[in-house]
């Protein structure tokens, strides 16, 4: 009798356990490797947590990386994100003022380098994009870039068993949809951080500037920090730095988005990290060297534009010696720990 009652008790417990477990759909344990987002010492917090509903995992990052390097995200298979964003150029398009896109088209703006994007409140030169996750919709569907439809991309990925495996590893089941695609890419692009340049080592007391670099650094702090402040070397605001209007493009910059005349010819202040390797410069890639850029600030600024930034009304006087020292300093912002990091490289 005692044995029977224990048996009944046991059966009852198993039955109840089954009942409670069936409440949640269990497909076996999914144990991704969670990652934390590390803010380099001394840096501000990002203005918003872009990973708040996209928890970082190693599996998500690896999936995002595969997608970033995959030409199948484009219509003809030729254009991956990485075609226009190359690691050795800090994910800018090396030596291209405009990038090549689908069907021999050219982009209408210079492809910016990609790093420290988690700190960037609005993306693209005119701030058109309001969240890193939705950014890839732009290049994927643009007829002059990847020229593809999102559902066609998903169709291609669903046929690939490697992707089915990787989506499952990253998200717990093999569902492939646009939200997961976009979140995975953001896990890759959003965790590319550049904080390992000589400048950073000097800040941490691990290296020291040469006298010319030091002199250039002092100049930078007085002449350039108003718009390119440390440690990100930009304040991500939209400003007009006095470039003449490129008549072929007639790009009105920020005004294209806000439709406000005050924003005419304003563009997002770019970070100057890795600037020595991310040439050509400015939203239309008009300058191929840092010397040309500094000459622009010394003598080229078009002072007649109403929206010209107040900091530049008198241009920025610099001697030739100062110009050279400034360039020496800008070279200390090159981060080889980024350009050579196998974590961000294609296998």
């Amino acid at each position: 009798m005692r044995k029977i009652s224990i048996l009944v008790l046991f059966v009852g417990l198993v039955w109840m356990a089954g009942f409670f477990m069936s409440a949640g759909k269990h497909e076996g344990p999914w144990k991704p490797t969670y990652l934390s987002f590390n803010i380099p010492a001394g840096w501000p917090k990002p203005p918003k947590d872009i990973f708040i509903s996209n928890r970082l995992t190693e599996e998500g990052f690896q999936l995002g990386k595969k997608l970033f390097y995959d030409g199948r995200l484009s219509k003809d298979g030729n254009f991956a994100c990485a075609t226009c964003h190359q690691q050795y150029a800090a994910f800018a398009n090396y030596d291209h003022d405009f990038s090549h896109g689908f069907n021999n088209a050219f982009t209408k703006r210079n492809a910016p380098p990609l790093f420290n994007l988690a700190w960037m409140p609005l993306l693209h030169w005119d701030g058109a994009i309001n969240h890193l996750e939705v950014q890839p919709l732009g290049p994927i569907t643009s007829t002059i870039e990847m020229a593809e439809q999102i559902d066609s991309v998903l169709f291609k990925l669903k046929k690939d068993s490697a992707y089915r495996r990787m989506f499952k590893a990253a998200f717990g089941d093999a569902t492939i949809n646009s939200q997961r695609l976009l979140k995975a890419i953001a896990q890759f692009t959003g965790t590319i951080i550049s904080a390992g340049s000589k400048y950073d080592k000097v800040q941490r007391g691990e290296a020291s500037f040469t006298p010319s670099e030091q002199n250039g650094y002092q100049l930078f702090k007085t002449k350039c920090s108003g718009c390119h402040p440390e440690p990100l070397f930009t304040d991500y605001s939209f400003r007009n730095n006095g470039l003449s209007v490129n008549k072929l493009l007639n790009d009105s910059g920020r005004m294209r988005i806000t439709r406000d005349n005050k924003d005419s010819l304003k563009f997002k202040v770019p970070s100057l990290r890795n600037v020595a390797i991310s040439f050509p410069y400015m939203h239309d890639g008009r300058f191929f060297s840092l010397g040309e850029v500094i000459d622009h600030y010394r003598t080229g600024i078009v002072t007649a534009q109403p929206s010209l930034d107040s900091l530049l009304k008198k241009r920025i006087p610099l001697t030739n010696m100062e110009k050279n020292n400034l360039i020496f300093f800008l070279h200390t912002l090159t981060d080889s720990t980024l350009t050579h990091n196998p974590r961000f490289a294609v296998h």
Partner: protein
Amino acid sequence: MNNTNKWLIVILAILLCQQVMAQNNQTQNNQGTITLSFIPNVAGKPLVLNDSSYTNPFDEIYQISKFRFYVSQVSAKDKQRSQKEKNSYHLIDAADPASLQFSFSLKPGKYNSIDFLLGVDSVRNFSGAQTGELDPVKNMFWTWNSGYVMLKLEGRSTASTALNNRIEYHIGGYSGAFNTIKKIHLDANFEIVAGKSVSLPIKTDINTLWQGAHDIRIAASPVCAIPCALAMQIADNYSKMFSIIK
């Protein structure tokens, strides 16, 4: 503990489980259902895509090939309280009959209005990649300037000067000077009874788009596809397109 006690525990546990299950069902049964169904039409003429011709208040003749809009944050109100639909996002698409109506549960009682946003609430416009009704594959999310298209009307008109006589209104913008999200309040007296369903047909008159607070002539504005002053005017007009059929 003797055997009888053990038996008792097992039986009590089983009873408890059943109780929990029963209660789950009961909360369902305690509720009634409201069904909102949108009936797109043009000044009373039923909407037939790609076929019928319609006339706007300025005697401009047009055809419609696409008509879609978002409805979000739906709630039903009585004098004291408001009950919200959970995860309330609906893409109403004239080309997809199933999308024209949706239901949600409400507590029994008398209600006197239905409220919703015509468009997608601002937060979802800047919170990254969404799914379900808000999935960008539905082609209602701008890729060149982040944000949802709140309402889309496409077609042709002999009055249009645009390429191939097209008319194209992609109305969006979720913040600042160009916020096209419209709060809709519809007076509706209805009573919800537990276990029963109430249906509210909502006449949706596309012809309101042209005239109301502003005159919108196809000849002058055949296309509007960016957040701008014109989009705001069009949204003002069409915010009056709903009326409950009694």
